[in-house]
């Protein structure tokens, strides 16, 4: 069974100038543990595709199967339930909860998925990204690179079957970005989880099993 199986994915949005097709009949499949890089110019629809595959948004047309669930047949809550505990995310702008400490941020997916011993697991995960001493710090007390490391820890803490990353190094300088990439690929390798990585960075894309390119809402 493929981790992701999508066909005819289409996303249309209504704007002031009329209907706009931002994703046009996209077919894509990921086998278990496979890493796919999505590249393409800005505005080509990469993030839109990632969002649809992860069930963050609903498609206008087409079918998506994620981890055996037919996402197109589910509502927002149903899709959230599929994500809980099985899907990890890393975003360009980190997206940590500002009110929670680093440790609590990492605990969050465990709690939402109802997985026990959240605190211990989270502490362990945080240690594995080198932030054992920063457990009690709030995001605002951490640098960008450190925040992204917390995000990586959060993404992997539930041992997800698939990880979605949308330009994870986009907001970081070269060195810091490299560290994050190393962490991410290292953890993915040991877990064997699938990866959908949206990036501008050709070097980064090259580390994936497969690279697909988008332009104007289509897969080339």
């Amino acid at each position: 069974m493929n981790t992701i199986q999508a066909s005819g994915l289409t996303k249309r949005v209504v704007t002031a100038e009329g209907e706009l097709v931002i994703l046009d009949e996209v077919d894509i499949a990921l086998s278990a543990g496979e890493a796919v890089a999505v590249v393409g110019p800005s505005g080509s629809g990469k993030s839109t595709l990632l969002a649809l595959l992860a069930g963050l948004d609903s498609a206008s047309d087409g079918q998506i199967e994620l981890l055996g669930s037919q996402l197109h047949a589910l509502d927002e809550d149903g899709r959230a339930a599929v994500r809980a505990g099985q899907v990890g995310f890393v975003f360009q702008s980190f997206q940590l909860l500002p009110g929670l400490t680093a440790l609590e941020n990492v605990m969050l997916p465990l709690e939402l998925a109802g997985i026990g011993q959240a605190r211990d697991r989270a502490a362990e995960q945080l240690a594995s990204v080198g932030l054992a001493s920063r457990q009690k710090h709030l995001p605002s007390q951490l640098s960008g690179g450190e925040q992204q490391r917390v995000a990586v820890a959060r993404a992997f803490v539930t041992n997800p079957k698939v990880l979605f990353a949308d330009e994870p190094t986009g907001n970081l300088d070269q060195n810091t970005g490299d560290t994050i990439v190393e962490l991410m690929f290292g953890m993915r390798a040991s877990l064997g989880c699938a990866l959908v990585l949206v990036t501008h960075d050709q070097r980064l894309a090259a580390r994936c099993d497969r690279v697909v390119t988008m332009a104007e809402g289509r897969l080339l």
Partner: protein
Amino acid sequence: MRVSEYLILTLALVLAVAAVTSVGFFANRVERAMQAQAATLLAADAIVSSPQQITAEVRDTALQNSLSITDVIEFPSVVLNDDGDTALVSVKAVGDAYPLRGELRLSRQLYGVDRGVIGGPPAGEVWIDPRLAGVLSVTPGDELALGDLQVVVNEFIAFEPDRGGDVFQMAPRLMMSASDLPVSGLLGEGSRARYKMLIAGESRDLDNFAGWLDQLGDASLQLQNVEQGRPRVQSALLNVRRFLGLAAAVAVLLSGAAVALAARQIAERDMDTSALLRAFGASSQSVIRIVLIRLAAIALVASLVGSAVGFLAQFGLSALLAQWFAAELPAPSMLPLVGGISCALLALGGFCLPAIAKSADAPVVRVLRRDLPVARPSTWLVIGSALMAMLVLLTWLTRDIKLGLALVAGLITVVGVLWLVSRALVALAGRAQAPRLRRALEGIRRRPNSVSLQISAFSVGLLALLLLAIVRTDVLNTWQRQIPDNAPNYFLVNIQPEEVEQVQSLLAQRGVEGESLHPMVRGRLEAINDRRIGEGGYSDERARRMSERDFNLSYHLLPRDDNTVVDGQWWPADTTENQFSVEQDFAEEVGINLGDELHFRIADKQVSGTVSNLREVQWESFAVNFFVVGTPVALSGHPASFVTSVFIDDPDGVFVRDVVSQFPGVTVLDVGTMLERITGILDRAALAVQYVFGFTLVAGILVLIAAVLASRRERFQEAAILRTLGASRRYLAGSVSREFILIGTLAGLMASSIAAVLAWVIVERVMSLQYEFNLTLWIGGILVGIAGIWSAGTVATLPVLRQSPMAVIRNQV
């Protein structure tokens, strides 16, 4: 998005204006009613009174000022009927134009249908109180001997406008024509007549005349106007108005807080636009101008809508207090509208301008660096301008700058205390370890100031409502409960000396034995030692009035069990001296000390004596008591009536009927009815104040919503992240609910508990009654806190629940 901030801003202003104008419109109606009513209570717009005949000079000046005048001369006298029976009467000789304001109502038959008339009796005719008809058994057409005159009784007086509310009025009224006076021989040398000249006219003319009278400097001439003639219910109403004003002011304060919160949000968003406009070369003035025009439009809309709401709301207030007024209240004038509009401008200016003004000079570099901290006006500037606005408002509402200052200080204290308590509660809750409540606690921990503001804003209104509810139910009940069961329930007054024995035997028939009938002599305190009353030196208006009016004296030889001498000695049983015993609080208020020489005028005689002791009186026992008691030697030789209070179980009113039929001159006062009326009035007053505090509660909810809106950006982001990580909508709704239920519990707990403590202070400390903790109300308060904050919080965060996780990708919160 921004619409909701402007909506809150507008709603808050509407609320402030509505609170102020509802009280304003109501007060305006009451004032107009008072003006009209008070004038009829004097039967004139003003009265000049004197112990001597009013001089031609005074009359002429009044006429020259285009005022209408008429005479009233009052004095006690005795009349005889054909059978030779006599009766003491209180004569009132009136001029043709009497009454100048209001109307006299007469009836041909005893207690028959009455009709209004203007003008006094013609010469040779008298109109009498029905009580006198009973005493002398006269019917219309009968003649009475009055001094050297034979007069014919033609009418019974059903209602006399300027009679006043004196239930202890001793003698029944006999009204005659002033033109009969010279030939009646009634007003000899040294007679105890009170000469009055009634005046009516335009207030400008009245002022001119009053000014002239003041210049004249004749101490024997007293000018009494409508203001001074205000009866006590109306001065109580004035106090209620103060409380209403205060309640409205608290609503304005909270609305102001909501305005300030919304304004800050608007300003922070405007800051970007403003920076951009200025980057393109717009001056900060032109940016400010745009903002000001927008705010002015909001102020205008809010004033109009708010005034309309206030106008509607005042009907509720008038309905609640309707029983205070004899007649329908007149329609209000449109004057309170000015107040409403000023209030909107004031609230807007005081609570919102500092923030808005700051946004106009946003640093232009924000165009490049949006993460620059937003410039906020200094907290002191915001607080200072808000306080100034409150001071202006409160001074205007109470018409008294000192009171305004005191109230602002009081408000700061109350709000400060509430804030500190909420902050402490929040800190305490933040430490709590409850896994299920973790996210709720986290919300509180993260925004301690905002949450404290929500708690204190909501609990101000709730606290006031609860406290008033406690006062209305518990305090009044406690007070009534603690009146002993066998406390007297009837007062019998105006018992004539010759009726004393018969009344006593009637009472004995009803099982009341040994109840003493207290003699009552009416007198006026003329001087204490060498200081004449009315010569000034009274700091307190009440003390001056108390000492100036006639009051009731009694006499007895032996000390009473239920009075305690606290200073000096009760007189010996064989005393032959003129001595007085004075109630201690009265003594203190009027300035009477042990050993002082008191000079009274009783009828046409002067009675002087020394104060030999001060007494403590248990007023709440409902026994008959007197401020001043004298030795029998001093007082027993003067015309007296008798009074007593008894407890009689008389559900069918048989006793009252017996008394009335056997003793037509005796008045029976039902204490139960009086108490009911008093507590009813207090209850209504509290209810009316509660009604206005309703605005405060709504304002508290607006503050809460504004504060929640201020955290909305954060909440949207959180919701998006949680959704991404797999949280269901129910999970989000649950954690939001728990957060607001927690905040509501804290607010309710605080309001309920503080209200209970204050109630305890009022009952135990101020009223010296036994306080009983009201658990139902305490729990009720907490539940109202939870329900109010939960529903307001849920409404304010509903859009957050609909947040799509897409926001984490688009970064668009």
